[in-house]
């Protein structure tokens, strides 16, 4: 084949000229960081850098990058550099540039020229079609750099010449907002840098398929990096703001902390039967008292007028009981349903209906679960908000998660396990019990932990079914274990603590936000208290997620060696 000798397996060394677009991409990154700092008001537009104001710096860098882009396009067109451009820049680039210049034209038409609707539409269409045509009908090296470079140059010149200067404002008609330079300039610079940097990356790749590859990778890496940065920023911000409030007044030492008494049946050895109390000296005292060696006021106190350091103990205990109740309700149901779906049922209408129902439940908004709990559970548990209604509502939310993950875990147990067990003569149920379930257990446990992490942070369901009191004092912490009582008539077991409306961590945050807007004099520094509370909630939820992710990683490693 005659073409074989002409194809290139590798491109050879990058020459100095070919490295210039990489330098421009680096410049674009620096400008991106500067504009971000200006947006977050870490620097202001009138700050002086080496005697030049920030807005001039931003504008001139933008112009430089724009000129560089145009130079790459022209240089490649004039064959000064070796590139492999395609006949045109492609539909995506053409549409993007057309859109950008349409907006620019519209702004010029309506603001600079003051034209009416038809006027600015005409100008916008003119610019947009010109840019689209340039990108779609000229060779790629010119079509993908010229519109981008021109846009960057235009933006830079506008800032440099002071057409949009530090004193500029814009009030669009009827929107009741004002655009100031401190937000518009960094935003425009960020956007222009993205576009120009994309064009420079394409130039670095030599245009063509490889150029688009480099350009796309730049944007995708930037996107992933931004998402990670936002996550780290959020968590770090909450940690920094909440830390002072959370560790306030912490003391470590023997006997320093509060006493906890765990008591069954009220802790004594009396039992109430048929309305009469019987004292049974034969029964041991069913209570145990522990003195904590650490005093952590924020986690161990409630919020009351006489409390020195207000804490969130009732909310923490409420969340713990909610999680326990929801898990006790949802996990057996969900695992049982998963066992049936994966082992017993054949693919048919019943399993399809169950799948649709489960996926539908999984997508249902949490506030709809709250409404359901309000309509269905509250009337059946005494007509008031109660802890058990909250537990069951969260259990309903947890159920589809458990079904989906347990089913996946059981389906991923290899069939060889089941076949080997059957070959040994073991019945189907015995196989499930002793082979499949243990093998699927890690996946089930991981799913439950991740599901618990999700429901521990849910506010809307408990808002309508359980939440009571804005800030609860420490003595109103719900005591479920000590609340159990036997009674003579049905339902034979009573627990007033379960029927109590109490608080939980997510609800406490919501109540605090409501209190921030109004007047409250219970908590001295509500905003600091709020950040500490949010840190505790975030810590609880993220630790569940962290444990779940680590266990999944560990079990996957074990399974696949």
């Amino acid at each position, binding site marked *: 084949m005659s073409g074989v000798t002409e194809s290139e397996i590798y491109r050879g060394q990058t020459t100095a000229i070919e490295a210039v677009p990489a330098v421009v991409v680096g410049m674009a990154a620096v400008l991106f960081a500067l504009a971000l700092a200006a947006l977050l008001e870490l620097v202001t537009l009138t700050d002086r850098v080496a005697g030049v104001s920030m807005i001039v710096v931003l504008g001139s860098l933008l112009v430089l990058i724009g000129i560089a882009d145009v130079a790459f396009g022209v240089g490649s067109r004039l064959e000064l550099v070796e590139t492999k451009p395609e006949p045109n820049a492609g539909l995506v680039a053409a549409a993007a540039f057309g859109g950008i210049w349409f907006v620019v034209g519209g702004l010029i038409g309506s603001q600079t020229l003051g034209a009416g609707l038809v006027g600015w539409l005409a100008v916008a269409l003119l610019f947009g079609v010109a840019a689209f045509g340039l990108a779609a009908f000229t060779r790629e090296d010119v079509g993908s750099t010229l519109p981008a470079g021109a846009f960057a140059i235009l933006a830079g010149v506008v800032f440099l010449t002071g057409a949009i200067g530090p004193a500029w404002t814009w009030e669009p008609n009827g929107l009741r907002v004002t655009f100031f330079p401190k937000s518009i300039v960094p935003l425009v610079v960020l956007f222009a840098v993205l576009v120009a940097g994309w064009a420079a990356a394409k130039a670095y790749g030599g245009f063509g398929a490889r150029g688009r590859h480099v350009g796309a990778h730049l944007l995708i890496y930037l996107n992933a990096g931004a998402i*990670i940065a936002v996550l780290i920023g959020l968590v770090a911000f909450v940690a920094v703001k909440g830390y002072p409030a959370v560790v306030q007044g912490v003391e470590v030492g023997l006997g320093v902390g509060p006493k906890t008494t765990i008591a069954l049946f009220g802790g004594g050895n009396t039992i109430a039967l048929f309305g009469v109390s019987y004292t049974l000296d034969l029964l041991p005292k069913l209570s145990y008292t522990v003195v904590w060696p650490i005093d952590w006021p924020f986690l161990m106190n409630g919020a009351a007028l006489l409390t020195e350091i207000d804490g969130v103990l009732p909310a923490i205990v409420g969340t713990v009981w909610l999680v326990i109740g929801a898990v006790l309700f949802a996990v057996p149901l969900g695992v049982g349903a998963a066992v049936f779906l994966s082992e017993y049922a054949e693919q048919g209408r019943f399993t399809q209906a169950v799948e649709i129902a489960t996926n539908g439940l999984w997508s249902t908004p949490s506030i709809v679960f*709250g409404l359901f709990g309000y*309509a269905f559970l509250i009337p059946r548990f005494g007509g008031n908000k109660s802890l058990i209604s909250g537990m069951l509502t969260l259990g309903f939310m947890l159920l589809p998660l458990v079904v989906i993950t347990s089913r996946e875990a059981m389906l991923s147990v290899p069939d060889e396990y089941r076949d080997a067990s059957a070959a040994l003569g073991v019945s189907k*149920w015995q196989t499930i019990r002793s082979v499949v379930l243990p093998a699927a257990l890690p996946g089930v446990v991981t799913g439950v932990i991740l599901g618990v992490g999700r429901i521990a942070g849910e506010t809307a369901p408990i808002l309508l079914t359980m939440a009571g009191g804005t800030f609860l004092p420490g003595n109103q912490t719900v005591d479920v274990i000590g609340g159990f009582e036997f009674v003579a008539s049905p339902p034979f077991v009573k627990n007033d603590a379960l029927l109590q409306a109490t608080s939980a961590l997510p609800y406490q945050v919501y109540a605090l936000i409501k209190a921030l807007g109004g007047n409250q004099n219970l908590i001295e520094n509500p905003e600091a208290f709020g950040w500490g509370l949010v840190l505790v909630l975030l810590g609880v939820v993220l630790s569940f997620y962290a444990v779940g992710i680590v266990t999944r990683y560990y079990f996957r490693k074990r399974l696949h060696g």
Partner: protein
Amino acid sequence: MSDSTPTGQAILDRRLNAVSDDLEALRDSVGDAPPDALVAGAIGSLSLFASFVGFLLVSPLTVVAMIVFLVATGYGWIRHQALTARAVTLAMTASTITVLGLITVFIFLEAIPVFQYSSGEVFGITVPGLRMFTQTKWEPVSQPHRFSLLPMIHGTVMVTVIATLVAGPLGVAAALFISEIAPPRVREAVKPAVEILAGIPSIVYGFIGFTILSPWASDQFDIVGQGTYLFVGIVVGLMALPTVVSVAEDALNSVPESMKSGSLALGTTDWQTMTTITLPAAFSGVSAAVLLGVGRAIGETMAATVMLRNSPAIPEKVYNVFYGYETLTSLIASRYGTAHGNHMDALFAAGVVLFITVMFLSIGSQMIEARMNRKLGGEE
């Protein structure tokens, strides 16, 4: 290509055969079972049903039925464990459908009075609830009461559109990164990071939005008061992003490696393979991912409740994203405590609209995913 779609008669025949097969299987299993197991099973199912009915009717005898059920199940477990296990797990599976049915029934039941109150007439036919969607006044306090869901629907649409514009492209790009571009070590760091982003509770986003973002936005853009659809949309988009990323990443991973390798062997770049092979092949899964993200954005409650103005209104310029009033979800969360009667039922009506919309999206994305599995499974 498979043969042409079956006729109506053939479908009916197939359905009837399936039903009669099921009945025969049931008859066989009943005939095989020992009699005491049958009795225990019958008692167990009856008592389970009775305890369910008793719970619905708030009867004190529910506990009695529950105890009978536990005794029957215990007896069956000791004597005929396999049969009991099968029956009990069947009941547990039916519970998922039951829960969904209960939710549907109870939400609708509570909303019926306000639908009847807000009936409208179309060509002489009374359509219940029509006035909730044709007039725009929301007046729950002073007479005449008017309950319109249109301001809330407008709010939900605005927030969802902005959230989808944030979560859709960025989420698919991140999914591409995780599944195709990232080196293995980077992938092992980024995937858990996205899951942790999914785990941050919405009230935490709401708190940060309320204390930091809303005041900053009102200051930056000189907005009267606090609460914009734009920034609520951005925050909700950030919350829906992990959903889109994880489902889209699953879809991209399920594209067979042979397709991608074949393309690369022809000399294409990675990016060309992604845009011409991987993305089109996984298109159904990716669109299902975006649909699920949209559903998540529609259902987002607490961040919207805390960051919006909580007074239903449609801005004069319908596209004004700089003033945010009320969404369907924030309506329910902010008013549940003070609403009674028709006002409360109107909240349930908003819940009905939410529930139906999200159900449609969920079923739609499931159908799309089923189609994708068929296409990529090699059966077509």
